[in-house]
């Protein structure tokens, strides 16, 4: 490795250390610095991985799916480099690889695991030796960055088209836009999907995606909807339909808070996996992880063990004990995900106590219009069941207006822009044994994490 690259690694490592010293888990700056100093560094680092890189993209479920894949690769005895802290732009990926390298730029790992957002896919494909590309789903998210959803899909497609001939695509069969990538890119594709109709509905709930055939424009006819627009679809006009899944969950048991259990049918074997994360969307994540594991040659037994060991993470409803009070933090970043969180909050029979923190920084999406696509009307039906809602963040005021127009009584809403003050205010009104739900956007979540760490209640973000 050239001197310039070694120097870039040292400088970036120092920058990462300094950033941690000041209580920030930031990886954007060190990554950008290293890329400026040595633009060819990331391909050289990634080129050392004998099994290449598994790349995961899509709107929802990236982080959780990546954690699951990390678990099963670990169970198979593989050493993994992973951009773990949700730093999913190319700068964050670069920083993660530098952090994993030693001072001479050597990576002691077998395989790379990278989650990145849709816009980063072409760049990631050109800089990393990607062997497997997993695409989870496409929902509206951060449209100001991508222009519009079709553009996000196009970015992933163009990235996929540049993959090497030995690369594999792992695609969600149940999402029409994801499945379309397999049809249009001339690479072997493995489709995964749910086959357990008991969890389907006949009506689409709260979705605005992909209602019309991508081929001819006719509205799709669905046998089942599983989750928003994910389901068993078929175009009545041109006949384009959901591909038959290669890796299918033939039975899914929702074990409530204890997680989900899946009976899996695959070309390799039929087996059962269990993961301690609840909800049908985690069944999708586990299925995607399983398909990715099989694609890199992990045995079903290691997949089973790996998935069983996955625990929830910060910002994904991990409960934190704050002086005898339960604080549940759930990252919110788009309407579909936010609706799921609202549903979970409503499932709690106790009075609702919430902090909703909305930022409009680049990583959050700079346009807050999406808040109007979230079904807060559903939350407002709780009426007296809402004890209080504190809105916070750079767009606290927008959030308060959204709640007012959803029908939440204004005397239950408090606006406090400052995150620390908002959490303090809220915690004062939560008694011992009671639960406070904190729903932040991405950069607001980093802030929440800092505030709670400062109070001495949570590990620092980069250790999660």
């Amino acid at each position, binding site marked *: 490795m050239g001197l310039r690259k070694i120097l870039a690694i040292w400088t970036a490592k120092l920058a990462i250390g300094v950033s941690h010293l000041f209580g920030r888990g930031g990886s954007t700056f060190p990554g950008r610095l290293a890329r400026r100093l040595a633009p060819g560094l990331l391909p050289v680092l990634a080129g050392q991985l004998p099994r290449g890189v598994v790349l995961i993209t899509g709107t929802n479920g990236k982080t959780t799916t990546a954690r699951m894949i990390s678990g099963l690769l670990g169970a198979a005895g593989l050493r993994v480099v992973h951009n773990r802290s949700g730093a999913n732009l190319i700068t964050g990926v670069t920083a993660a690889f530098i952090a994993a390298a030693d001072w001479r730029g050597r990576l002691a790992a077998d395989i790379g695991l990278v989650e990145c957002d849709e816009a980063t896919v072409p760049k990631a494909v050109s800089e990393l030796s990607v062997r497997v590309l997993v695409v989870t789903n496409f929902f*509206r998210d951060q*449209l*100001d960055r991508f*222009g*519009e*959803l*079709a553009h996000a899909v196009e970015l992933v497609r163009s990235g996929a088209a540049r993959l090497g001939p030995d690369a594999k695509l792992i695609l969600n069969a149940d999402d029409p836009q994801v499945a379309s990538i397999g049809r249009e890119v001339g690479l072997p594709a493995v489709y995964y999907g749910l086959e357990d109709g008991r969890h389907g509905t006949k009506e689409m709930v709260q979705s*605005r995606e992909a*209602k*019309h055939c991508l081929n001819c*424009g006719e509205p799709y006819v669905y046998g089942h909807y599983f989750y928003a627009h994910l389901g068993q679809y078929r175009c009545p006009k041109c006949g384009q339909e959901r591909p038959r899944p290669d890796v299918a969950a033939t039975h899914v048991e929702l074990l409530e808070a204890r997680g989900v259990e899946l009976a899996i049918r695959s070309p390799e074997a039929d087996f059962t996996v269990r993961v301690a994360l609840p909800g049908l969307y985690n069944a999708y994540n586990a299925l995607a992880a399983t398909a990715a594991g099989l694609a890199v040659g992990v045995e079903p037994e290691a997949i089973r063990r790996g998935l069983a060991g996955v625990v929830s993470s910060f910002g994904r409803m991990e409960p934190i004990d704050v002086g005898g009070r339960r604080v549940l933090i759930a990252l919110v970043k788009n309407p579909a995900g936010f609706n799921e969180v609202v549903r979970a909050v409503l499932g709690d029979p106790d009075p609702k106590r919430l902090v909703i923190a909305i930022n*409009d920084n680049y990583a959050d999406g*700079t*346009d*807050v*219009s*999406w*808040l*109007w*696509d979230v079904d807060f009307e559903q939350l407002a039906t709780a009426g007296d069941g809402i004890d209080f809602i504190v809105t916070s963040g*750079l*767009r*606290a*005021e*927008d959030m*308060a*207006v*959204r709640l*007012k*127009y*959803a029908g939440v009584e*204004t005397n239950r*809403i408090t*606006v406090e822009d400052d995150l620390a003050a908002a959490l303090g205010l809220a915690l004062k009104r939560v008694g011992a044994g009671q639960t406070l739900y904190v729903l932040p956007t991405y950069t607001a979540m980093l802030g929440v994490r800092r505030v709670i760490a400062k109070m001495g209640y949570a590990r620092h973000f980069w250790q999660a």
Partner: protein
Amino acid sequence: MIGIGQELKICHLYPDLMNLYGDRGNVIALRRRAEWHGLRPSVEEVSLEDKSDFRRFDVIFIGGGQDREQKLICLDFQKVKGSALTEAVEDDAVLLAICGGYQLLGSYYQTGEGERVPGIGIVDLWTVAGKKRLIGNVIVETDLIEGPGPKTVVGFENHSGQTYLGAGLRPFGKVVTGYGNNGEDGGEGVIYRNTVGTYLHGSLLPKNPGVTDFLLRRALLRRYGVAELKPLDDMAEMRAHEAAIRRAKTKAY
């Protein structure tokens, strides 16, 4: 004063196709404020192939969509709804069209390849695909807002089309911060009779209650001949309005 319980018919055009950036927030705002003003609003959704006499509506709303959906709508306008919608506009029905919906009001949209996709041609405007996407917070000033409140309108724009108005047409407002119609002439949106076209999302109406009330007043004048609205408690809305102004001024995108 308007009598309690007088009805107000709102039409949400293509809610299934033109709903890209929280556009339903505008319909929520129209309905809520109408209720708070003591009216009895109803919302009817009208989509593809649905032939309607639009003159019976008081307020018609159309949002923005993706290119693919907008093409479907173009066809629907040509084959089904175009003339009925034009009649309603000429009859002074209130029409609010945002982003893609705004572009469709014009005579055409010229793509990057030079292809001209025809619009409805209700208003003398046209749109040309630009090289750069115009994205960011916007502040506009308009003299359409009545009363003692601010004359500013805040929102978020995100469009690659650059729109130009024909001679004699007035823009909805003047750009203070942001790009507006085309980033060149300082105009944002259009006002023609009781039709407002604009690029502003946000959603637009919730944190611009002055604009919502302007539209409601125009609708009430047309139907009932009077349009006095009592002032509402807009503290939450105005705080969001002011926060958006601060955000637009402190941050360069």
